[in-house]
């Protein structure tokens, strides 16, 4: 193993603690694996509070923690804009999908579509939507993991990515959803505790007066500083801001790894309470993130910009170092190591959830339902799911290692949210509520949503930073976030496909889906 000279011993110890706890949980979970229901849905025995924590653990990625704190440090208010979108999105999830998913679904979002639509095309479309979102999100998280661990611990990028991937696969393959859930719960608790302690340290520097923090932050800017208490410093194009806002608030309701969490609770009531728990955890977390971001600006000022790296990702760890007593002190190194350990746990929990949802799409939707037409045994499906998880994990590791640090993480996360909002969200909502919706509509909507989101991102100025035109985009496209165009296109595809096709919707199964999703009659039971 090539180890860089500047390896951080405290961080390695904390990483080892995080890993041994999560591996212990995985061992415990592996003893309780009984079949597909345990593997995909933890036997549907997770309580509302536990699931609320697990949703927070599944949702709050390193981008939410280090990324948003960094954006606030660099640009001020605009970083906070992301948090608002990420949080309000849970109202969309609660009002439109959470309980209905629990009542109507089994293991994957394709279950809900194929309930009333022709199974093979509907499942294929849903699996396409799930895999597209999971792939981009997963690669982004892996690259982020490599960059962070390299910077924080001193391990080489490729080794850091491979290690993250190996542990992620270990949780998923040996412990399934049960282990993944508890890894997410542990991570959520660590993350909340970490950010709470850090916020208290920050607030202590200003005598526990948050407003003084804003004043200090603004006073700590120079003429060339990008920081502003007003919006527009980072998101300078108004129409792009609106487009991003739309993708954030609707995209969460189409993220397969988040929706999958609703299959792990015993009933709709628990699904509902878990969303509200998640709202409080996630909301509280994002409020505290502003203290970290503004605190980093107020403590480190413009001098800390260079050390914060691309996107300001290292602003929070550097702030921890300062608050603990500065570089070279035991307190500083320890605080930095703790925050690095929290960031590591954060990444592990998110990637495990993503791989699990992708393996469900491959094994449950494509293999079991489409290729084997339901003739396979439950045991076979679980084996295929594990093989799928391993393959997806290895491919993601390889892409992250080959693409290296140069892969644009924020572009891939943006793409994942855009696809989720433009493809998965319209198809799911219409399948659950629109009586006339049919298979052609679902396939058209998902395909149009996925293709338009990818194409518009590919031609966006973020991907073509060349100087040969004003925007860099080869066709002069100026929008960096495709949501404002691709979300309406996704809905349009669903609606036009339905209205223009001669296919008659299967009325009978709509009655069943409708009653079942509203009342929970006939819903999948918890294991006892």
């Amino acid at each position, binding site marked *: 193993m090539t180890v860089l000279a500047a390896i951080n011993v405290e961080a390695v110890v904390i990483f080892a603690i995080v890993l041994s706890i999560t591996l212990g949980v995985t061992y415990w979970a592996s003893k309780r694996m009984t079949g597909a229901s345990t593997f995909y849905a933890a036997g549907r025995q997770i309580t509302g509070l536990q699931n609320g924590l697990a949703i927070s653990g599944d949702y709050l990625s390193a981008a939410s923690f280090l990324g948003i704190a960094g954006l606030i440090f660099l640009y001020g*208010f*605009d970083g*906070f*804009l992301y948090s*608002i*979108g990420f*949080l*309000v999105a*849970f*109202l*969309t999830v*609660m*009002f*439109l999908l959470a309980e209905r998913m629990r009542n109507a679904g089994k293991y994957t979002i394709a279950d809900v579509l194929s309930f009333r639509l022709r199974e093979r095309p509907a499942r294929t479309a849903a699996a396409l939507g799930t895999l597209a979102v999971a792939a981009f999100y997963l690669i982004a998280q892996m690259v982020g993991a490599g960059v962070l661990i390299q910077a924080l611990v001193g391990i080489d990028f490729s080794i850091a990515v491979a290690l993250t991937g190996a542990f992620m696969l270990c949780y998923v393959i040996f412990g399934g959803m049960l282990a993944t859930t508890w890894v997410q719960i542990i991570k959520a608790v660590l993350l909340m505790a970490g950010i709470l302690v850090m916020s208290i340290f920050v607030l202590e520097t200003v005598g526990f007066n948050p*407003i*003084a*923090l*804003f*004043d*200090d*932050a*603004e006073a700590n800017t120079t003429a060339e500083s990008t920081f*502003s*208490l*007003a*919006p*527009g410093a980072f*998101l300078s194009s*108004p*129409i792009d*801001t*609106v487009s991003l*806002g*739309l993708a954030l*608030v609707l995209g969460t309701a189409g993220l397969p790894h988040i929706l999958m969490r609703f299959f792990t609770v015993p009933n709709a*009531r628990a699904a*509902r*309470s878990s*969303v*509200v728990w998640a*709202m*409080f955890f996630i*909301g509280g977390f*994002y*409020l505290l993130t502003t203290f970290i971001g503004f605190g980093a600006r107020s403590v480190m000022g413009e001098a800390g910009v260079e050390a914060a790296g691309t996107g300001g990702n290292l602003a929070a760890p550097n702030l921890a170092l300062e608050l603990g007593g500065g570089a070279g002190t035991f307190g500083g190194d320890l605080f930095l190591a703790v925050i690095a350990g929290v960031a590591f746990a954060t990444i592990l929990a998110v990637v495990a959830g993503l791989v699990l949802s992708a393996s469900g799409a491959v094994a449950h939707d494509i293999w079991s339902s489409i290729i084997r037409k339901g003739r396979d045994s439950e045991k076979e499906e679980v084996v295929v799911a594990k093989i799928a998880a391993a393959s997806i994990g290895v491919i993601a590791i390889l892409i992250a290692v080959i693409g290296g640090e140069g892969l644009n993480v924020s572009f891939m996360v943006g793409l994942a949210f855009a696809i989720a909002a433009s493809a998965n969200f319209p198809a799911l909502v219409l399948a659950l509520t629109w009586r006339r919706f049919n298979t052609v509509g679902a396939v058209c909507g998902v395909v149009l949503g996925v293709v338009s989101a990818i194409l518009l991102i590919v031609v966006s100025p973020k991907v073509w930073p060349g100087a040969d035109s004003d925007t860099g985009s080869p066709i002069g496209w100026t929008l960096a976030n495709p949501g404002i165009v691709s979300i309406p296109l996704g809905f349009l595809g669903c609606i036009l496909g339905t209205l223009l096709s001669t296919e008659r919707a299967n009325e*009978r199964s709509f*009655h*069943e889906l*409708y*009653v*079942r999703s*509203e*009342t*929970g*009659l*006939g819903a999948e*039971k918890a294991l006892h």
Partner: protein
Amino acid sequence: MADHDRSTIDWEAIERSPEFQELVHRRRAFVIPCTVFFLSWYLGFILLCAYAPDFMGESVYQGLTVGYCLALTQFLMVFVLGLWYLSKADKEFDPLAERAIAAHSDDAPQPGTRRAQEVRS
């Protein structure tokens, strides 16, 4: 609740039942206005950030800006709507759903459920 066999349940009859219709209407009467409200309040905030950054950057009190205060109202909105829906669903929607199932499933008809409905409404 007994284990229901999907094929023996008369889904259409449940859907037509007054209990189910009332459940759906009441839930919609709550969820649709709430959804319209939260999306408008959120998109209004985003539009202000996008097109009126100077207004959002104005100070309310020292470093506390209009934008930050409006952002806090978004947090408040999420918490209040979340808790409100939770209590509404527990008190109102869940009992209605149970009645809709009980009155029309393949279980023995449960006396009193329909009458309870009439008395209450």
